[in-house]
């Protein structure tokens, strides 16, 4: 068997996944902290203040990566949920459900930091603007997925029901993305483009790229840890968990 295919099959084994997650999550977190520290140093101390917004534009360096993560994580959650529904792969159910609280956290950061930025720039904490409203609906969708998953006792049935909600919810993502194009919006249009020309000055973009990479790495670490926790919760009666608990209870949450 091809080694990559074999590795994927092995990863589906709960004890193997537990060891894998426990080993690699700290590395992802450590890399994320380093990359984000470098990005934040650039964002707070290196980049000049904006000529119109002053220093308040520095909020953008946490707001934009979090907003992108809120959409990316939801899309990934739906992808895992679809695989779990089609092929009944338990690990994909676990990964899909582990995505939900992380995505909700990034959506919450997006809304809160946007609101904090909006007060001095727009003169209001909140406006029922299409971009803001659709992002709020995304947060409720995340809460819906989390709530549904915890409302049903049977973990596999719960994951399937919540996964279905995640798949249906994907329809919201293009609405959020194009809300500033389709409707008159208080929120500014697209200023940063990965493949086209950005309207943001090049000197200001570099810390943003570091923050985008840093949040992705953070997500990997967090996903592995949350998936590990759910995997252990499902397998708590099994021998390998007992052995792990008996031998490794002191430094369990590495």
């Amino acid at each position: 068997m091809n080694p990559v295919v074999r590795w994927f099959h092995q990863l589906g084994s709960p004890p193997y996944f537990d060891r894998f997650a426990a080993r690699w999550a700290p590395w992802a977190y450590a890399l994320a902290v380093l990359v984000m520290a470098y990005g934040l140093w650039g964002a707070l101390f290196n980049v000049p203040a904006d000529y119109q917004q002053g220093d308040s534009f520095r909020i953008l360096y946490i707001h934009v990566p979090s907003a992108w993560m809120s959409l990316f994580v939801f899309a990934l959650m739906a992808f895992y949920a679809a695989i779990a529904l089609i092929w009944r792969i338990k690990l994909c159910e676990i990964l899909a459900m582990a995505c939900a609280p992380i995505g909700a956290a990034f959506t919450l950061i997006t809304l809160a930091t946007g609101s904090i930025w909006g007060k001095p720039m727009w003169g209001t904490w909140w406006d029922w603007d299409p971009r803001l409203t659709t992002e709020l609906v995304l947060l409720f969708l995340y809460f819906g997925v989390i709530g549904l998953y915890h409302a049903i006792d049977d973990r596999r049935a719960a994951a399937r029901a919540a996964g279905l909600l995640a798949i249906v919810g994907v329809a919201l993502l293009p609405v959020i993305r194009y809300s500033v194009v389709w409707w008159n919006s208080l929120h500014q249009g697209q200023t940063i483009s990965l493949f086209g020309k950005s309207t943001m000055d090049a000197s200001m973009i570099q810390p943003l790229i570091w923050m985008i990479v840093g949040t992705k790495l953070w997500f990997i670490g967090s996903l592995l840890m949350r998936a590990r926790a759910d995997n252990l919760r499902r397998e708590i009666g099994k021998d390998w968990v007992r052995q792990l608990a008996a031998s490794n209870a002191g430094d369990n949450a590495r």
Partner: protein
Amino acid sequence: MSYQNYVVAAYAVFFVVLLWDFLAPRIGIRQLLKTAKTRVTRQTKPDKNEPLTRES
């Protein structure tokens, strides 16, 4: 720094939420392993209420 309070508040929200995201699964794993360890201890511990007998 202009708008300093807003910048500080926004970054504080960012760090607090990430800190929660970092701690929540660790606490969960710690509790789960503790529960599993308690179960193992209960199962291996001899039952004190069991009557003494010479029969083996």
